């Protein structure tokens, strides 16, 4: 294990940190040769959210089939691969362990090196599958568990300049969706309703300190809950579209404004959005508009690469592999893993 030179630049990547069992084959860190995602959303819907034990059980059921499918779609054999990459953390520990142990067994059986990837580095590097990353770069990471502004001087260098102090953006979406009695996951449904709405209920914007790049969404979530409560007390019907539109406008305005301010201050060459909430139409439109006007190139991956997938893990693994980063057979799940630079 541990060759530094690649035959074909082919990485098999595996991701199982939450409720998607995924495998992909990525060439040279930028070309998707195959990308397979087995989603468990249907199974978790009845619980109104992801149940960790159920997620782990599904991962064991699916894992070898998903990897086989990734190889079959790529028309490759294990011998054609150069390395195995896997999400090491953060995420649900029981879920992470399935991908990690499958990756270790596969790497051992086929005599391949293994690379452990940070899930958020993966979300960011989803962009490398669309166009080359240009540095310095600013990434807005908005997902189910994270809301962060990450400044990158170069490949493998991550500086978190702002993050949420309470709920992640995706979490706020899912909680507000529950208030509106929408099925899990709520993000896409709220996005849809917001799009249909004409009126918007005015909700507050939380800016925190003037110079801070941090976020806070729990106050906004409470404002929505209070609004619904007051309307219920008065016996009035709420308009789900107006609530969704008002909520989304608040989230999008704060995310856009802080990203723009950071992009200016850090004088970045490129701004990218990443994570499940980057699939949000309102957010994409807003960021595109301001950065177009500002003259800074802005990119966001296609929807399929925003939510959890293994292609992004393979994309992030390539520069790690080239930097000589290697995992070993003792690799464990790291549910609270921090995003650290590898340069």
């Amino acid at each position: 294990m541990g060759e530094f030179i690649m035959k074909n630049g082919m990485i098999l990547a595996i991701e199982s940190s939450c409720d998607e069992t995924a495998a992909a084959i990525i060439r040279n860190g930028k070309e998707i040769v195959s990308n397979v995602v087995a989603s468990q959303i249907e199974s978790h819907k009845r619980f109104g959210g992801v149940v960790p034990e159920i997620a782990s059980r599904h991962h064991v059921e699916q894992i070898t089939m998903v990897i086989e499918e990734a190889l079959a779609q790529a028309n490759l054999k294990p011998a054609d691969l150069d390395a195995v990459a896997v999400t090491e953390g953060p995420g649900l520990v029981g879920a992470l362990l399935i991908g990690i142990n499958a990756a270790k067994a596969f790497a051992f059986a086929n005599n391949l090196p293994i690379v452990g990837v940070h899930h958020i580095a993966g979300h960011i590097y989803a962009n490398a599958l669309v166009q080359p990353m240009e540095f310095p770069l600013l990434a807005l990471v908005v997902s189910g568990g994270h809301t962060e502004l990450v400044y990158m001087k170069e490949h493998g260098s991550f500086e978190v300049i702002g993050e949420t102090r309470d709920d992640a953006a995706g979490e706020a979406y899912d909680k507000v969706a529950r208030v509106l009695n929408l099925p899990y996951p709520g993000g896409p449904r709220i996005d849809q309703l917001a799009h249909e709405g004409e009126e918007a209920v005015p909700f507050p914007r939380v800016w925190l300190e003037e110079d801070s790049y941090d976020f806070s969404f729990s106050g906004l979530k409470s404002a929505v809950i209070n609004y619904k409560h007051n309307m219920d007390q008065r016996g009035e019907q709420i308009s789900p579209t107006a609530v969704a539109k008002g909520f989304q406008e608040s989230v999008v305005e704060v995310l856009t404004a802080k990203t723009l301010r950071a992009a200016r201050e850090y004088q970045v060459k490129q701004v990218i959005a990443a994570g499940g909430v980057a699939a949000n139409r309102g957010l994409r439109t807003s960021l595109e508009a301001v950065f177009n006007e500002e003259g800074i190139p802005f990119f966001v991956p296609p929807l399929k690469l925003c939510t959890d997938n293994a292609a992004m893990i393979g994309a992030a693994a390539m520069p790690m592999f080239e930097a000589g980063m290697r995992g070993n057979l003792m690799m464990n799940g790291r549910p609270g893993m921090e995003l650290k630079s590898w340069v």
Partner: protein
Amino acid sequence: MIWLGIETANTPLSVAVVKDGKVVAEMVQNIKLTHSAGAMPAIEEILARVGLKPNDLDAIAVSEGPGSYTGVRIGVTLAKTLAWTLQKPLVGVSSLQALAANVVLYNGMICPVFDARRGNVYTAVYQGMALEAIVDDYHAHIDDLLERLKALEVPILFVGTDVDIFWENIVEVLGDQAVRAPFSFDLPRATEVIRVATKKELPNVEATHYFVPQYKRIAEAEANWLKEQKEKQHE
């Protein structure tokens, strides 16, 4: 015929290589090291020691549960991935039966026990050298188990490190019926996992994808959900 055996269903870890009906090497330990950190390196080491490459294996046997959910899943995921990528047959063995198999040359009733917390156990009753299941693997409160054993009205040999947690209770209910196996039988061993596996038919390699752990218990969230559905039906 070369077998690799893997046992990670509870805290103990064991791996073994058996060739043509002879034990080549076995590793057994009972320390607080997570199986994710310990199991794969143990497999790598045992194969290196006996001078085998992964592809030299002819079949893989794994302890399929019940036991710790995470422990069972790690062993099954490793075994399943190795078997699938090497295209070798995978045989699952009850973790309880494999533990009972430690008690060789004994003709009576054997009761293996794994702690399942809050007074519950994973358990079964196997009889004799054929390890015939008298009580199938199940998840139960210890009181339920002891009631069933008392009704059998024969001596019961208890095996497993977790027996000690319940021993007072066991003796109180069963009195002289209860016999404690010697401590050296208490750790599950991968050679026994292989021995039990060799008595089974080798499955097709295509079956590996569908191999799943035997939890013997539905997930708590699912149990609650089912209960809710039932209550809704009654309303």
